Every structure is written in C-alpha cells, then in structure tokens.
C-alpha cells in the first residue's frame, strides 16, 4: 500500500513537471526570442525598449547595419516616430548561399507616456543599437513633496 502511494506521488510529480514545461513553452512562444530570431518584430519594425528613468525616458532600438544617415527621427510633443531604411549589402559578383537578413524599410511611432522637452532630445547610435534620451517636460518630472 505504502509503495503505491509513493508511486502516485511520483506520477503527479511528473505531471506537474510536464505542466510547468508546457507553461514555459507557451510563454516562450509569445516572446520574440527563442522561437524566432532576427531583428524585427512581427510587423517588420525593429524591436524597441522604453525605460523610464525619472527625469528622462530612454528608448533603445535594434537597428543593425544602419548608419545614422539611414535613420530618421521625428518628435512632436509626446509623439515620436522612428523610420529608417536598411540598404542591401549584398556584394557584387558573389553567389548567395543563404539570405536571412534582407533589406527593409520601416516606420514605427510611439506615444510616449508623458510630454518631453523636444529641444533636448539626444540620439546616439552604437553597435547597431539606437539610443534616444528624452528629457521629460517640467510638468511631467517627478516632484518631491514635503509633508507639513
């Protein structure tokens, strides 16, 4: 009898393990990494991250193979638009074995969570990562409140 119980226990343990593996599979499925690789999300635009660092926002975007001349940034109030073109860099006189990268053009726009000071926005490009630093407008900056 006792051995039976532990058998059951083990069986349920195995089922739980299977269930957690399945869960992980589904959460991974939704992510861009793991299942699919590449630099674009489904709509054909580069992946971006938005960070809120209190006094400024920081946007990072993956733009491999693009120079600063290939990218266009426009901002108006809290509306930001990033557009760009990736030129084909296929060399002349070569036979292609595998082409996964391809040339593309994209436009992506964001509504930022708060107004930013459009005059002080800075952008830099390093190793295929575009980094935008967007200082928040005075009204949107966090304020320390003193208790009376």
């Amino acid at each position, binding site marked *: 009898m*006792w*051995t039976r*119980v*532990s058998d059951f*226990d*083990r069986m349920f*343990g195995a089922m*739980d*393990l299977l269930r*957690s593996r399945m869960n*992980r599979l589904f959460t991974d499925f939704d992510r*861009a*990494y*793991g299942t699919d*690789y*590449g*630099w674009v*999300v489904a709509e054909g635009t580069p*992946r*971006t*991250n*938005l*960070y*809120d*660092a*209190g006094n*400024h*926002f*920081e946007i*990072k975007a*993956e*733009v*491999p*193979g*693009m*120079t600063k001349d290939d990218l266009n940034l426009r901002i108006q109030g809290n509306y930001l638009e990033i557009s760009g073109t990736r030129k084909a*860099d*296929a*060399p002349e*006189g*070569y*036979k*292609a*074995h*595998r*082409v*996964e*990268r391809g040339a593309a053009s994209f436009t992506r726009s964001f509504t930022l*969570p708060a107004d930013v000071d459009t005059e002080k926005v800075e952008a830099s*490009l390093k*190793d*295929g*990562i575009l980094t935008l630093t967007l200082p928040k407008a005075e009204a949107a900056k966090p304020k320390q409140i003193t208790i009376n």
Partner: protein
Amino acid sequence: MSDKAELVKREETTPERSRQMPAVSPVVDIYENSDEILLYADMPGVAKDDITVNVDNGKLTISGVRKLAAAGAANWAEFGDVEYSRIFSVPQAIDVAKVNAELRDGVLKLHLPKSEAAKPRQIEIKAA
C-alpha cells in the same frame, strides 16, 4: 513512505534552473565567389570585445554576448541581454590562417578566403 513523499516534493519545489541569458542564433547571409566565402551576421548591441569567432576542425563558431546598459524601469522591453551563437560547417578548402572579421553597426562581416589549391583554375589547352 513519508521520506519518499518528501523526496518527491522536494524535486518539484526546486525546478531546474533555466539559463540566465537566452541564446539566439543571429540571422546570417552567406555569399561565395571564387576567392572567398563571405558571411554577414546581425548582432546588434554586441561590442567588438564580446565577440568570439572560432574555426576549429571544420566548424566555425561565432558567438557574442550583448549587455544592455539600461537606465530606470522598463515601460516595455522587446529585447534584452542575449547570447548570440551559431555554428557552421566550413569546407576544408578554407584557409584558416587568413580568416578575418570586421564589425560595423552591429553587423559582423567575416571573410573566409579559400586556400590556393581550392580556387578554380583555368586549364590551358596546348596545341599538340
């Protein structure tokens, strides 16, 4: 029985650790002409020092680690720290000593020159 049950439960409460950094294959383009094989790989955000290119025993391994320096809390994050790695089989005809790599704007460009013996040769026909 109690001992055994505990043992099983302990297994469940400590599930296997997944890797800290997701591993991704970079997308590549591979071209070839009579002199060399040319490989492009997209590895955005990887610094030059964090890339390793290895040719060993007919296997070409490229790998690189991306560490993003982020400020503040993420409102959304579609990409993060990642480990790029991909392995290719290379033909014996590659001159390993002359392989060279360059990194520009997050794209790794790898030249794999063919050895002299493997290059196509025009054979001249002599008049008898």
